[in-house]
């Protein structure tokens, strides 16, 4: 659980790309905070801006195409204003990130050991001497079986699960204070996914670092995080601790999501369905972005963008009808 000491704050972040004539507005005013030791779940469907938001936290978005407005405050400094050289001292040292495709995220022509050592040496976390012993410790930390022989392997010799563990080891190389995990288990089989989720929980517990899990799978979120933020069309539509979010969701989109996913407990023969298509970031509607698909959309929803309000202690929602929708039978 978080101890209340603020680590990261994103204030009204807006990110857009210009491709040809139309501009793709990927992030349209996202604000959220992350405290030390907190485990935040970020949920949303493709194109909702969740990955772009946290890529900008890492400064991975090349500035020429991307236009970034708003602030990302980390350690008292606005990261979006840092030069590439200054940002490089933060990246990998204080904030680390792992990605979805373990098959393609490791350099195929470099041995595993060298890639880890490279991470270790980068931020002077360890002197040249004990760099190999530190690498072995990291592999043990992420429970890689017979670690010494693995150091000399190439990525193509390892399974997806092992490669993801190596990615985590590399991320932990210089004890980052935040670990961003973008769809860490999506590409893995369910049994391997379980192993990795357990590992992430244990690592967070042992190192006390805060962790952000970006995923589209509500099951993953329910298991591992403290608070959940639901993204839709570049905006956070609802944010709360996981218990109140799952028991009493307020935003129609969250409600729809929770009901349309088949689970092992689902009995009904037909699924609840959110009609319409995923929003196209290049052509967003004027009012509430969800209005075209919302069963409860009113005239106001079509014209006026809803403000994010704290509808219950610690439970934020961006909907004009927040609190008036019965979550159980939509």
């Amino acid at each position, binding site marked *: 659980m978080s101890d209340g000491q603020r680590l990261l704050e994103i204030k009204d972040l807006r990110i857009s*790309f210009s*491709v*040809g004539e139309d501009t*793709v507005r990927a992030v349209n005013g996202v604000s959220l905070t992350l405290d030390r030791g907190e485990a935040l779940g970020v949920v949303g469907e493709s194109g909702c801006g969740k990955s772009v938001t946290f890529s900008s936290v890492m400064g991975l*978005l*090349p500035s*020429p*195409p991307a236009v970034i407005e708003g602030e990302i405050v980390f350690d008292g400094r606005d990261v979006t204003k840092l030069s590439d050289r200054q940002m490089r001292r933060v990246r990998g040292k204080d904030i680390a990130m792992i990605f979805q495709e373990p098959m393609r995220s490791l350099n195929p022509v470099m041995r595993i050991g060298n890639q880890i050592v490279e991470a270790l040496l980068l931020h002077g976390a360890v002197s040249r001497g004990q760099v190999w012993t530190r690498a072995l410790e990291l592999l043990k930390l992420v429970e890689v079986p017979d670690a010494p022989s693995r150091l000399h392997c190439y990525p193509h010799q390892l399974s997806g699960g092992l490669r993801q563990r190596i990615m985590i080891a590399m991320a932990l190389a210089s004890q980052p204070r935040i670990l961003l995990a973008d769809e860490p288990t999506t590409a893995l089989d369910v049994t391997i996914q379980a192993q990795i989720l357990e590992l992430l929980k244990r690592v967070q517990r042992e190192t006390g670092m805060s962790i952000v899990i970006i995923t589209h799978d509500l099951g993953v979120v329910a298991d591992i995080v403290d608070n959940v933020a639901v993204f839709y069309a570049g905006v956070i539509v609802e944010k709360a601790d996981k218990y109140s979010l799952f028991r009493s969701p307020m935003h129609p989109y969250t409600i729809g999501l929770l009901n349309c996913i088949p689970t092992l407990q689902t009995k009904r023969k037909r699924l609840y369905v959110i009609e319409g298509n995923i929003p196209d970031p290049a052509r967003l509607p004027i009012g509430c972005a969800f209005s075209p698909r919302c069963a409860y959309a009113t005239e106001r929803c079509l014209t006026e963008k809803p403000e994010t309000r704290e509808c219950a202690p610690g439970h934020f929602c961006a909907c004009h009808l927040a609190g008036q929708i019965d979550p159980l039978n939509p």
Partner: protein
Amino acid sequence: MEAILKNKFFVIGGGIVLIISLLVLFAPLLTSYDYGAVDLPNKQLPPGAEHIMGTDLYGRDVWCRIIYGGRVSLTVALGSTAVALVVGTMLGALSGYVRGTLDFVLDRVNDVLMAFPMLLFSLVIGVVLGSSMKNMFLSIGIPIIPMFYRIARATAMSVGGRSYVLAARAMGGGRMRVILRHIIPNVLPHTLVILSSAIGGAILAEASLGFLGFGIPQPTPSWGLIANDGKTYMFSHPWTTAFAGAFIALTILGFNLLGDGLRDWLDPKIRTAAKR
């Protein structure tokens, strides 16, 4: 479609090729001279009012020979690369998709073709068939086939595994139908991209053959021949070779830029890189 017009390589390259093709096409309107008319008394004249690009060692007007020569050089280049493109793509697609013994045989033939230095092969075929313009299609075309064959075969192998091919087979589509409808249309863009550098290569090959004395027979002008005619006086009367060389270089530059533009536009990864 409009995306491609914004790609600066495509626009510049296309512009150059267009201008040169127009010049060559409307040659009769641009000059009154006859490209074969010998006029020894005023040979080797420097560029001047009378002859914008001067005259060559036989007193023939260089400007006239260059634009008429363009017809020969471009036709030979386009013709030979077209031959290579069609044969290379067809065989490559077939070999890449069908695999098996056909693939083994074609691959070995390709190895044999590749074992010959390109220029030598053109030379031998040119002499055997006689170096008329039509035969140059083969003598320059055949050695370029491996270039297309390799790309077509590799692409056909990857396309063969795609789901829409499996779906077509699941619908009962026969092997020939799949190849004609799905494999070749998806292989062609990849071979088209290297068409431009192949055209450049073909123009160079024609020039080199001329240099070695196996080019198109006189007096039909081609850029390679004009450059070669002026070669002996390259340093005392440089303009004949300079102008011919410039046209060769410009055309190849144009086609290569065209190819770059095409490749950037065709390759979704590069095109969407900015949008990430």
